[in-house]
């Protein structure tokens, strides 16, 4: 190759490099979490309030799972889950409902495997784990997992948007987040809005390692930027629940896959970019999903399976010291046969706290209460089991 051609090619290499750098934005340089739904004074109830109901009372599906709730821009509560004949079934659909005048509307399927296949132009095995991101402008972003092959470890994340309250949805787009065939990026827990716009979504990988991550999403003028960062590596923890503590401080509680059988905690002081070493809490974890949030007075609340062996009950615990020590306050479900699992906790703008969870594998149960109800609960005798 003549020398002058080499130099021309070198110049081209750097021009192309400059072009690539020019088109890629870096939108998450200094993220900070938006305040976690401040309790509106007008909505705050005076007396303790507790209620439980089913989101999908008459759905009659053999299998439903991964229920979650969200708030539309107008404050109406929405519910989201997936279900069908069995867990890895191609016929499974993502269902959506909303609470109108005190009762849940009939569930509506908003996403099917066939629709995803048509939009993505490739086959999938099945879908699951939906999560709604309600934007400030009233639009809804739906994140969900599709499985290309195998089981959940072969899952990939997808996204679509609705600008009319969930009636119609944009084309599904695939998010590429993992180096090995984009396998095993899964979503489950509550997304946290960012102060500068966009979302921080707890995700996790369980293909070769099992580890928690954060997905950073920002849609600017229809152009989506998706990045991720790692909380910790290895093969130990998954399904992080992210709890912002104000500004750039946050903690994550982690589902445990190790023999410790404990809920683990990690902390960040810089908006989730770096995380402290994970340490066990005094709460048990039978390799099951957990979900938590912060309350108005700085206390933290977590819903968890209070067992080291199986998902035999679902309980609530409270921490007054930022997540180091937890006290059990209430058992939401004591029936071991109902196999209560995968809690999803959120706080609405009216101050009510909602806990959605899978009950008996074929129903999504929703418990709602206010902070006065929590205040009234006398914490059980302090746990003596240390971390």
């Amino acid at each position, binding site marked *: *190759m003549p020398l002058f051609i*080499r130099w021309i*090619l*070198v110049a*081209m*290499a*750097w021009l*192309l*490099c400059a*072009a*690539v*750098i020019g*088109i*890629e934005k*870096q939108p998450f340089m200094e993220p900070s979490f938006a305040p976690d739904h401040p309790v509106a004074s007008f909505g705050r109830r005076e007396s303790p309030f507790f209620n439980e109901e089913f989101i999908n009372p008459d759905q009659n599906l053999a299998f439903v799972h991964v229920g979650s709730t969200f708030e539309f821009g107008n404050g109406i509560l929405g519910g989201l889950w997936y279900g069908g004949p069995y867990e890895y079934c191609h016929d499974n659909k993502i269902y959506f409902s909303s609470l109108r005048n005190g009762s849940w509307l009939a569930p509506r399927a908003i996403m099917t495997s066939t629709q995803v*296949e048509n939009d993505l*132009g*490739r*086959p*999938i095995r099945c879908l699951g784990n939906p999560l709604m991101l309600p934007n400030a402008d009233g639009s809804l972003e739906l994140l969900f997992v599709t499985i*290309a*092959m195998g089981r959940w470890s072969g899952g990939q994340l997808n996204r679509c948007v609705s600008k009319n309250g969930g009636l119609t949805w944009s*084309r599904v787009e*695939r998010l*590429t*987040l*993992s*180096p*090995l*065939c*984009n396998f095993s990026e899964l979503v489950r827990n509550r997304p946290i809005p960012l102060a500068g716009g966009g979302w921080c979504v707890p995700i996790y*990988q369980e*293909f*070769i*390692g*099992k*580890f928690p*991550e954060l997905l950073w999403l920002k849609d600017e003028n229809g152009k989506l930027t*998706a*990045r*991720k*960062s*790692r909380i*910790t*590596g*290895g*093969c130990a923890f998954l399904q992080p629940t992210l709890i912002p503590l104000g500004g750039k401080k946050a903690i994550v509680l982690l589902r445990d896959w190790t023999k410790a059988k404990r809920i683990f905690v990690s902390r960040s002081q810089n908006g989730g970019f770096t*995380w402290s070493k994970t340490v066990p809490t005094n709460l048990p974890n039978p390799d099951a999903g957990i979900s938590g949030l912060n309350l108005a007075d700085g206390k933290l609340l977590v819903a968890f399976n209070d067992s080291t062996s199986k998902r035999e009950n679902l309980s609530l615990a409270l921490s007054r010291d930022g997540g180091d020590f937890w006290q059990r306050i209430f058992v939401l479900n004591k029936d071991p046969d109902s196999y209560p699992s995968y809690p999803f906790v959120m706080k609405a703008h009216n101050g009510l706290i909602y806990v959605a969870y899978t009950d008996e594998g074929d129903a999504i149960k929703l418990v709602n209460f206010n902070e006065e109800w929590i205040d009234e609960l006398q914490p059980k005798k302090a746990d003596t089991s240390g971390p």
Partner: protein
Amino acid sequence: MSTDLIHQLYAGLLPWLGLSLLLLGRSPILSRLRIVGSLLLAFFLLRIPVHGWNIFLWIRSLEANPSIIMSGLLSVALWQRVSGRELFRLSDWTAAWIFGSAAAFTLYPMGLGLTSVDSYCWGWDRGLPIATAAIATALLLLGNRLGVLLLLPSAGFFLDLQESRNFWDALVDPIYAVISLGAVILLLLRLCTQRQQRVASFDKGQTAC
């Protein structure tokens, strides 16, 4: 042309190139009929429907982002096979396998959770395109033709050929990683054998003296 169609066409390129190369076989003499026949047969074989989806799309569901370098290397191999002309010399191929191995070693263990550092995230930063341009510069100035191929990831990324917006996916994919690692292992084994033979012949020479 829509972005989705570009992504779909690009994702189909690598399986088509790979299968065409396999169908051409190892025969030293290739007729024009065999060349065209192999290219067409590869295309139609990949269009065979399985459970309602053609094989192209099944492959795409597993790997939607074949690396641009691997596609480039297969194009070079196919061109060499068809034309009989040497586009890449042995040193160029060796550089390609070393580059692929180094990229795989840097990306996959950390990217799949070995440490708290996620090397896959570097693909969203500016460092990786700059590093690629620097390696391309060095190779071009050394006269290695892999340097030309290293221009393609940036060009492909700029043209939005892939579904992924992570620069790693333009550089390396699991197939390229496995082939590169295999080739580098073979290369190292050959070097070791040659060295042992050299030592043995040297010892023999000393004994004879």
